[in-house]
């Protein structure tokens, strides 16, 4: 294992949204800060720095991760998807449209993390119950919407996708 003295920066190379990226990080640099300030991907938001609010959620090697509770150096060689990567995924357009139609966002600050969790969740659970959707969303805090629009949007996308697959 490499040891870094305090204050020393090292190069971190990873694949973000399908493209190779590299930047510098100290051993203490948070992945959220690395994404934002080294790679200039400002779509990932930081709401609490404690892994509670979920705004900073990204997909890290196929699993959801709180980028504020992950060190940048842990992402060496990893594959990461942020909201910018999700935005390029046309397969997620129905989810975005459903969010917009159902009022699932207001200020939009928590939205990038919720899109990461919701799309990851739907891929694993294409036909969820409302209770399962609420359980998944309970890993995120939204102060604006009361969550109802998100629940409806996710259930609607699941229903349409499942019906489409059955036809």
């Amino acid at each position, binding site marked *: 294992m490499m040891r870094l003295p305090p204050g020393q920066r090292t190069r971190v190379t990873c694949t973000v949204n399908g493209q190779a990226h590299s930047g510098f990080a100290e051993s203490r640099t948070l992945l959220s800060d690395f994404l934002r300030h080294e790679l200039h991907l400002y779509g990932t938001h930081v709401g609490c720095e404690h892994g509670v609010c979920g705004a900073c959620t990204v997909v890290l090697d196929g699993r959801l991760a709180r980028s504020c509770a992950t060190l940048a150096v842990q992402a060496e060689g990893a594959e990461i998807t942020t909201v910018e990567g999700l935005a390029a995924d046309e397969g997620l357009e129905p989810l975005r449209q459903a969010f917009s139609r159902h009022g699932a966002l207001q200020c*939009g*600050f928590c*939205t990038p993390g919720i899109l990461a969790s919701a799309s990851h969740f739907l891929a694993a659970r294409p036909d969820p119950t409302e209770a399962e959707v609420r359980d998944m969303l309970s890993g995120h805090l939204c102060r604006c919407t009361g969550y109802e629009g998100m629940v409806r949007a996710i259930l609607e996308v699941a229903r349409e996708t499942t019906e489409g697959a059955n036809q």
Partner: protein
Amino acid sequence: MEIEVRPGLIGARVQRLEDPRLLTGHGTYVDDLQLPGTLHLAFRRSDHGHARIIAIDTEEAAAMPGVAAVVTAADIADGVKPYRATSRMPDYHPTTLPVLAADKVRYVGEPVVAVLAENRYLAEDAAEQVAIDYDPLPTVIDPEAAAQPGAPVLHEEIGSNVILSRSFSRGDVEAALAGAPVRVAGRFRMHRKTPAAMENRAYLADYDQGRRALTLYSSTQVPGIVRDSLAEILDIPGNRLRVIAPDVGGGFGGKTPLYGEEVLVCHLARKLGRPVKWCADRLEDLTTTSQAFDEIVEAELACDGDGTILGLRAEVIGDIGAYSIYPYTAALEPVQVISFLPGPYRVPSYHGAVKGVATSKALTGAYRGVGRPISTFAMERLVDMAARELSLDPLEMRRRNMVRAEEFPYKTPVGLVWDRAGFMECLDGAAAAADYDGLRAEQARARADGRWFGIGLASYAELTGLGSRISAAPGMPVNTGTETASIRIDATGAVTAAFGIASHGQGLETTLAQVVAEELGVRVEDVEVVHGDSDAVAHSTGTYASRSTILAGGAATLSARALRQQVVEAAAHLLEAAQADIEVADGAIRVAGTDRAMSFPELAKAVFVEMGRLPRELREQVDLQVTKTYDPYFGTTAPATHLAVVEIDPETYRVAIRRYVVAEDCGRIINPMIADGQVHGGVAQGIGAALYEEVVYDDEGQILTASLVDYLVPTAAEIPEMEVLHLEIETEANIGGFRGLGEGGTIGAPAALANAVTDALAPLGIDIDELPVTPDRLFRLIREANKDEN
């Protein structure tokens, strides 16, 4: 038969214009803005609730890597004028607000030393090395003790912690109480909340040395107030000072004050000639963003034998925190509590008195609902208690006392006037939507099975969209009663509508575009709404107090109508038709009944470029830009009734919300999806206030809820699906016929839930008089009740 050629844009469920950027990570919040050479600010904050500063040693911090400056109060005295929230209110004592504490600290989290460094990590490293020597002083935590003579005093120059007192009276309440057949009284306590917007506060100041001009990017709700305040504090004229609120991640009132950090980034950017950025972390947010809902209400209600209210008396203590918040003053919330305590009822005699008491805690300020969640909680509990004494159903008790349609305009005991609004319609609407009688039958069955099942009602009315006659805060020397819209069609034919308000999640880019599009005759997506920029119009304040739809919507209506008239005048000349025959719709200009038409770009070219097409006199009148200011003068009444059905788990004491119904009168709706969202979000915050959220300070003034692990913002697992009934009752109180709906959800929910939980526990005789009613509080109440029984 009338054929509608085009569905009305006002009232349409239009998808928000904001959404595409916010759903793809392309929103721009303050922390997303990058300016070369930016220095990052971190603070060393007070870790004492009350202490004298003996000495500050910054030497070691200043020598740390990457540090550009370490700044104390003494260092900024030359460039920052002291400021304080003044008021015309008698019996109010302003407190000077230090940007950095000089002699004393008065709450944990108060900024003492600022460190500027090349990045935030280095700035925090250095801030840790600052050494501050304190002489601790006795803290002032309990507001009732703090109000007593002899209590330690936070502000020596005032000589008392009671920094404001106010009362309202109508009629002889003592006589009404003395002779009343039924009297109920209670002591109601709402514990302190914090707005907890998901985006923490963030500021970036950029000083242009060539122009000697300052731009502040701020996550504020009120760029106009910030601009006007900074102009005075920093002595910069408004034409060289611009405040921009880009995308803002929620506010809920917490981003309405001017904060010391805002002043400081501006001062330091000017002094050092480099951009300066500060973004709060969540710890800083929870310790220093304005908090709210911290009142104790002792109140007594007197009724006749048939339930008719005879009188109401209340003594209120507001815990205002360490300083009087700028510019609203600490009177904002406490005075609102006694202003709205009588609720939507006929209250013939009233006496309400309030004291605002300074304590060693974060400042209080505006939070969604301001005071009315507390007043509604107290009054609606009293109404239910009186109904119980009289063996009347709570619904019937409300019907007998609510202001009836024929009684509008109704002057409340404090002199506010309720204009025609659907008070009774909301009450009946909520009861019908919930199948109230059916619910009572279900409750009877549940009780027979020994289940704790309760139904709670809460009715209230608020004044929204305040005009210039009524200040948003008592006696505040800031005009909050007007808004300006500046709409123009430029030389390319594109429409830009500029406003002083600042949308921070409410979807005002969309709703105001709907208003402009409808009035001007263009498509919604053709209207570019500019907001959150102090340069947009000459004067504005911002978005708060359920005002922006009414005020900015009114200004949009006036400006768009005048602009449409210009379009008609120019087009009549160009198309050689009578003005009455010109139709403007969907961005096309037509002569009715003919195929003669022109587009906005063609019109704009004729007006601005192709000189000679319009006579010179006409061009002087038609410049395709209109700025109008709207003043609704008074306010617009917005009532609602909330109905909550709860069941309490006898094992965990969790309060599960089985149903939640809101019937509210919001006047004419611009966008039903956005209206629903305002209610849903407001109710969710009200549920948090009722069941989960509480800012806790210990006796030393240490805050125990300094992370979102400890301060419980409700999640999707706690917030139920809601049934929302919008009653669109016409109003002439403002030009658009709108009623404000931003805050109502938070006003009704705590009371409805307190009544529902009380109703559920009626077999045990438990009254809920303290919120939040957490499982821990319920456990203790139920244990006490069982003890009494045994």
